[in-house]
């Protein structure tokens, strides 16, 4: 097992720096989200980009750059938090499924999971937002499924590996085998999925804000900035273009890091060549 773990770490060395970048991004987003909301200055209404206001100002005279920065930070902070909580839920559910593979609990989880994932996340989140449920809770409930699927199959596969069987023969409890033997080897497969969940939750949060859900009055938000395309559109594109580009780039970056991590892990898609 140790050599397998060592090879995992070795193959992971390159993409692991990308994970440090993400961790730094999250810490930065948590800190930036603490900044106060911008103060409207009526005399600075709808100014284009300049040296003083790099990204211009909006209809209330607030600096678009500052608002974009805080809005992105808030969405990222919430997106990562949702990914961590739903990742943990998915991992626990996956461990239960792996221990009782094809059992009653596993089948029940599969039925609920398949039902939840049959819907577009945003549309289902919208449905429950309409009746007033908190968006963060809705997304956690919806997004544990991908992590559950990956951890279930990975852990069930690893539980049948010789080192796990040896531990079972030695009389170790299943819980400990799962924790000590299989989980360390399952991380490289599970973490890219958690990142995809982070991207999903980030997109869902921005999409819901775009439609006016989960927006706190006066607080800058990426989705609200993006929605300005429907109101100010051509007349003040500097308000919504940075938010649009940032959303697209961040989601693309998440997918990129998840993809290279998946490719570089032992047993990943390129390892089969």
């Amino acid at each position, binding site marked *: 097992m140790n050599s397998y773990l060592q090879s995992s770490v070795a193959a992971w060395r390159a993409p692991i720096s990308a994970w440090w970048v993400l961790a730094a991004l999250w810490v930065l987003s948590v800190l930036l989200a603490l900044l106060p909301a911008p103060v409207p200055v009526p005399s600075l209404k709808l100014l284009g980009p300049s040296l003083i206001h790099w990204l211009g100002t909006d209809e209330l005279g607030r600096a678009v750059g500052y608002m974009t920065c805080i809005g992105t930070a808030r969405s990222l902070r919430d997106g990562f938090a949702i990914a961590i909580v739903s990742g943990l839920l998915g991992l626990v559910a996956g461990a239960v499924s792996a221990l009782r593979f094809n059992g009653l609990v596993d089948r029940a989880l599969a*039925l*609920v999971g*398949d*039902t939840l*994932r*049959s*819907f*577009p996340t*945003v*549309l*289902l989140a*919208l*449905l*429950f*937002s*309409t*009746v*007033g*449920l908190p968006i963060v809770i809705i997304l956690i409930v919806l997004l544990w499924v991908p992590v559950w699927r990956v951890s279930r199959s990975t852990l069930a596969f690893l539980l049948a590996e010789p080192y796990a069987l040896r531990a079972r023969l030695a009389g170790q409890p299943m819980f400990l085998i799962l924790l000590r033997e299989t989980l360390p080897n399952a991380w490289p497969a599970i973490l890219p999925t958690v990142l995809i969940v982070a*991207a999903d939750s980030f*997109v869902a949060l*921005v*999409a819901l804000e*775009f*439609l*006016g*859900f989960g927006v706190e009055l006066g607080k800058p938000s990426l989705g609200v900035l*993006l929605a300005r*395309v*429907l109101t100010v*559109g*051509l007349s003040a*594109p500097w308000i*919504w*273009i940075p938010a*649009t580009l940032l*959303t*697209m780039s961040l*989601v*693309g*970056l*998440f*997918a*990129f890091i*998840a*993809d*290279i991590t998946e*490719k570089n892990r032992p047993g990943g*898609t*390129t390892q*089969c*060549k």
Partner: protein
Amino acid sequence: MPDFVMGWPIALGILAVRIGFSALLVAFAVFAAASAVPVDPARALLGPMADEAAVAALRGELGMEAPFIIQFMRWVMRLLHGDFGYSPFHQRPALDVVMDLVPLSLSRLGLSMGLGVLIGALLGFQTFSARAFSRTLYSSTLAVPAFALAACSLWLAARTFGATPLSAPWLYQVLTIGIAALPTGLAVATTLSQWLHGDRPLTRTRQYLELAGAPEHVIVRNLVREATPATFAVTANSIVPALTAVTFCEFVFSLKGFGAVFLTACQKSDLPIVVAGTLITLALLIPAQALSEQLSSVIGRRLARAH
């Protein structure tokens, strides 16, 4: 006869159970959530100054005094009889509003997915012949949200052609189909490139062909045959992102369609439309998912046999 055709009766039975269970689960979640809202419909209908006795009488008339589960069963029975409620914003039954628009959106969805498969096949083969293009770029592009693309397209179309959704609706129809074609196109291209490049576990047939020094076109033909079920499966799976894209594009471009009405209903808390739209979407998506799973199981069996 292909494997997946032989098990159709059983598969259809499982599908029916799954659709029924999913519909019941979603309906229950919606009903429970709606019941948890601290608003008394009887009080809302009669106004804040209404007499307590009148409010209690109306509550009894509306069946709100019954236990939760009885209320839910009554609601489900109404849904089964096609009574999804009356939309206060459209002044029509919710089901009629949704059913009038679903064919239009479905035609956009169908066109976009057809276009997506075509583009994906072309890109996949191009990647195979060029052997240079990274599928990481495909996956990264695939993740870009549709509403952001729709926003950019709206601005670009208006700036470049001076065309607004009102003055040139056809242009925005084309843009909707193009944006919704992206998920299918990129998913098909990624899958094809994975199979054609041999990223997937190599099948024994391919190894034999390579060892036997078969010509390139024979290997390609073989690989394409191997890749076909996977391509169908991802096409069926991409119905979810494609539908999301059509919905958002219709909303952003103000096009007549299910998406615009559904998202506006969500914004205005028009629950009858939201419930009708959700359950109809469910009836559309679950069979697609089931088809995708069936095809995936075929791939699994073929791979297992090949090894």
